[in-house]
C-alpha cells in the first residue's frame, strides 16, 4: 500500500521534471539522447505487450519503418499536414499488423519469430526495390520537413525554432508525449482484464480457448496496438532526423528492442522502460570505446537470460530475498527461530 502511494506521488513529480528538461538544459546532444530514449521506450513497451501474449516478434522495427515511410510520403508526396500524417502512420502500421497477424499469429514460438523476421526484410526490400521511384530506393529520402508549426492562441509552436532556447525542445516534447501515452495505454492493458487474458493465453492457450476466449482476436489486438505505437514512433523519428532510408529501422533495431525488454524484464511495464533507458544511454556513455558496445550489450543480454530471468527490475526483490534467506539461516543457527 505504501509503495502504491509512493508511486502515486513520485510519478507526477517525475513527469514534471521530464517536462522541465528543455528549460534545465539547452544542450542539443543530451536532448537528442532523451528523444531517442523516449522513442526506444515506445518500441520496447509495445514489443513487451506482444511478448505477454506468448509471441516473439523479431521484426518490430519494420512497423516503425512502415510508419516512417507512411508519414514521410504523405507529407512530402501528398501534401498532408504532419499532424494528420502522424496518426495515419500509426493506423497504417496497425492495419498491416492485423493483415499479417491473422494468418501468422496462429503459429507459435520460433516459427512466428522467423516469420516476423522475414516480414521485416520483405518490407525493407519492397521499399528499396519495388517502390524505388517513390521511396528513393537505397539512397532514401532526404530533407524531410519538420512537423508543421502549430498555432495556438497567438502563439506559434515552430519545431525549427525550438523552445526555451533548446533547439530540439519541441521534438523532445513530442517524443515525451508519445512515450507517456504509449506507457499509459500499455499500463491500462496490463492492469485490466484484457492484459490478464493476454497472459492467460501465453500460459495455456488451449485452456483459454476452451473457456471461450477467442485467442486470435486477443493476439491480433496486442500485435496491432504495439505496431500502432511503433508506427507513430517511426513517423516521428523520420521527421526529427529529416532523413529516412531502408536502413533507418532494421532487423538490428528489432533485436535491440527485444534486448530492452528482456534485460529490463518482461514481467512488468517498468522492465522495458529501464532496458530502453540503459541500452540507449549506454552507447553514449561508452563513446570512447564504441567498438566494445555490441560486446557489452550482448554480454548483458546473456547475463540477464542466464542469471536474471525476471530482468533488471526483479533485481531488488532477488537481493531482498537473498538477504532474508541469509538472515533466516543466521536466526536458525543462533537458535532464535
Amino acid at each position: 500500500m505504501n509503495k502504491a502511494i509512493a508511486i502515486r506521488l513520485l510519478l507526477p513529480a517525475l513527469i514534471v521534471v521530464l517536462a522541465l528538461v528543455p528549460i534545465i538544459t539547452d544542450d542539443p546532444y543530451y536532448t537528442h539522447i532523451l528523444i531517442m530514449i523516449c522513442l526506444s521506450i515506445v518500441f520496447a513497451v509495445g514489443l513487451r505487450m506482444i511478448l505477454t501474449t506468448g509471441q516473439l516478434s523479431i521484426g518490430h522495427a519494420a512497423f516503425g519503418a512502415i510508419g516512417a515511410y507512411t508519414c514521410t510520403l504523405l507529407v512530402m508526396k501528398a501534401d498532408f499536414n504532419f499532424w494528420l500524417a502522424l496518426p495515419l502512420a500509426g493506423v497504417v502500421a496497425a492495419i498491416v499488423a492485423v493483415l499479417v497477424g491473422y494468418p501468422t499469429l496462429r503459429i507459435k514460438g520460433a516459427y512466428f519469430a522467423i516469420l516476423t523476421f522475414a516480414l521485416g526484410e520483405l518490407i525493407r526490400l519492397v521499399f528499396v526495390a519495388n517502390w524505388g521511384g517513390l521511396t528513393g530506393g537505397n539512397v532514401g529520402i532526404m530533407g524531410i520537413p519538420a512537423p508543421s508549426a502549430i498555432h495556438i492562441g497567438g502563439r506559434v509552436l515552430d519545431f525549427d525554432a525550438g523552445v526555451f532556447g533548446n533547439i530540439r525542445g519541441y521534438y523532445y516534447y513530442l517524443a515525451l508525449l508519445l512515450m507517456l501515452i504509449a506507457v499509459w495505454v500499455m499500463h491500462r492493458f496490463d492492469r485490466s482484464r484484457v492484459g490478464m487474458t493476454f497472459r492467460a493465453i501465453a500460459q495455456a492457450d488451449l485452456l483459454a480457448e476452451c473457456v471461450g476466449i477467442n485467442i486470435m482476436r486477443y493476439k491480433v489486438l496486442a500485435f496491432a496496438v504495439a505496431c500502432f505505437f511503433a508506427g507513430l514512433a517511426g513517423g516521428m523519428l523520420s521527421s526529427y532526423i529529416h532523413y529516412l532510408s531502408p536502413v533507418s529501422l532494421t532487423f538490428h533495431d528489432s533485436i535491440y528492442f527485444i534486448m530492452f525488454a528482456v534485460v529490463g524484464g518482461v514481467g512488468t511495464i517498468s522492465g522495458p522502460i529501464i532496458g530502453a533507458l540503459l541500452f540507449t544511454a549506454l552507447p553514449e556513455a561508452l563513446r570512447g570505446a564504441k567498438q566494445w558496445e555490441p560486446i557489452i550489450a550482448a554480454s548483458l543480454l546473456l547475463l540477464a537470460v542466464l542469471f536474471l530471468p525476471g530482468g533488471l527490475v526483479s533485481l531488488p526483490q532477488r537481493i531482498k530475498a537473498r538477504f532474508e534467506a541469509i538472515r533466516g539461516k543466521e536466526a536458525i543457527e543462533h537458535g532464535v527461530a
Partner: protein
Amino acid sequence: MALLEITKLSKHFGGLAAVSELDLQVEEGEILGLIGPNGAGKTTLFNVISGVYRPTSGKIIFNGEDITGLKPSMIAKKGLVRTFQATTLFDEFTVLANVLIGFHPHAGIAIWGALVGTPATRQREAALVQQAMEILDLMGIAHLKDELATSLPHGHQRCLGIAIAMAANPKLLLLDEPVTGMSREETAMVMATIRKIREQKGLTIIVVEHNMRAAMGLSDRMVVLNYGRKIAEGSPQEISENPEVIEAYLGAERYAA
C-alpha cells in the same frame, strides 16, 4: 430431446479411425461415464466434441444447435465446457485469477470498458470476484485463493481445473480423467466434489475415467468404447456384467501383459 446428440461421428488420423461412426446421446442432468481401454478414442472424442479437432464426418447437436466444426471458444460460449487430462492451468496465476479468467464468455466486460476502467466494469469485476469465491468454496479450495496454481497439490489442481470450467457457466461439463493418478483420499475428495456440483448446479456431465471404481461410482449411465466404436451402453451394473466389455478389458490386459 437429449442435451447432446452425436450421430455417426468419425475422426480419422490418416488411416487410423480414432472415433468411428459413433452415436451418442446425453440426457439433461445425467452423469455419463465414458470408459474403454487405452487408445479406445475417449480423449479424441472429447477433443472433437469440444472443437479442438474437426470431425472427419458426422454431426454434433448441442442444446438443439449444430456445433459440428465450430471453434472451441464458440462451443464454450454455448455452454459446453471441458477440462483437461493433464493439470492444464494458468500456472503463474493465483487460484482466484484462474477462476476469473474462466468467466470470460459471460463476464460482460467489453475491451474498452476494461481498459478505461469505468465504474460499471469495476463493479462487475468485484461481482465476479464474489462469484469466483463461491465457486472456489463449492470446490473446497477457497482457502487457497492467493496461492499460485502451480504450487497446489495434485488433487487441488484438478479441483481448480474444474473450477475454471465451472466459471465458464457450462450446461454440459466434460471431465477428462478427473481422478486418474490420485491417491485414495484425493479421489474420494474429487468425486464428492463432482457429485456436489452436479446437485447444486444441475449440470450434465460426461466423465472419462481410467479408475474403473471411480467411474462406476460416479456415473448414472456408462458407454464403453473400444477402437473408436461403442461396444456397450447401460447402467454401471449392466456394464460390469457385459461379456463384451470384460473381453475388451481382459483382452487388452492380456495383450499388455
